[in-house]
């Protein structure tokens, strides 16, 4: 199963465009968290997978691109965290709700740079 990109995007047209797309993914991730919490309660050990993980991975890749276009002095620190998260997900494919929520907060911080 492959989800198609919903619209033609030119990722590097501007940093603002990229930020908007990252914001959309982060909003979707927040909805995913709420949806899991609604269904399973606040059990941090619940496994998050499938489409919710796709949203998270896309957001992490976009965040990496966004960091590359940013000038903040925190960029290197966040870049390493994002790369580590991507590598972890590649290896494990799933995250617990707790880990998923942590990644959400990381993405939120990057958006505020």
């Amino acid at each position, binding site marked *: 199963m492959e989800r198609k990109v919903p619209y033609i995007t*030119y*990722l590097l*047209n501007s940093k603002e465009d990229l930020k908007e797309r990252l914001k959309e993914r982060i909003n979707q991730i927040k909805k995913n968290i709420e949806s899991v919490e609604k269904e399973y309660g606040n059990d941090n050990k619940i496994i998050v997978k499938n489409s919710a993980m796709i949203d998270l991975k896309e957001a992490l890749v976009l965040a990496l691109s966004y*960091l*590359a276009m940013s000038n903040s002095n925190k960029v290197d620190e966040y870049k390493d965290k994002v790369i580590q998260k*991507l590598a972890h997900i*590649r290896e494990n494919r799933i995250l617990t709700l707790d880990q998923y929520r942590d990644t959400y907060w990381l993405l939120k911080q990057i958006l505020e740079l």
Partner: protein
Amino acid sequence: MDENYQYTYQIPDLKTRFQIGFGNIIEQIVNLLTYSEMYGDTETFDNEELKYKLRAAIAYALALLGSTWGYAMSAQVQRDVEMAKESLKTLFSRIIKDPELSYLDLLDIYYQLIQQVSIILNYGTPIPRPRTGNYEIT
């Protein structure tokens, strides 16, 4: 069809074309990193496709740099473009020469690639957003 209608096709300038090409290949990398790994077989996913696409993206980035030349540039901008060119050549060379590049290395190369190109895209004439359906009836 009324033969008085004449179709014209707006050909974008070279820089815009390379930017679109670069944007497309970056989009493919984002898709690869986002989707293919999740649904593909990670045991056989050996980074080769990622390397291939990164090489293509770097080639587009170099072309973009070359086409940027000629826009009104200060000496400082020219130096920045030269430095970006050397950095991109180094990234390309790393992919070609080092067969042991890890997934983390490749993500780092992706990051540096975007970093170099974004420096350049801040210069020169603003690029109009490419549109779908560039046909005009005159």
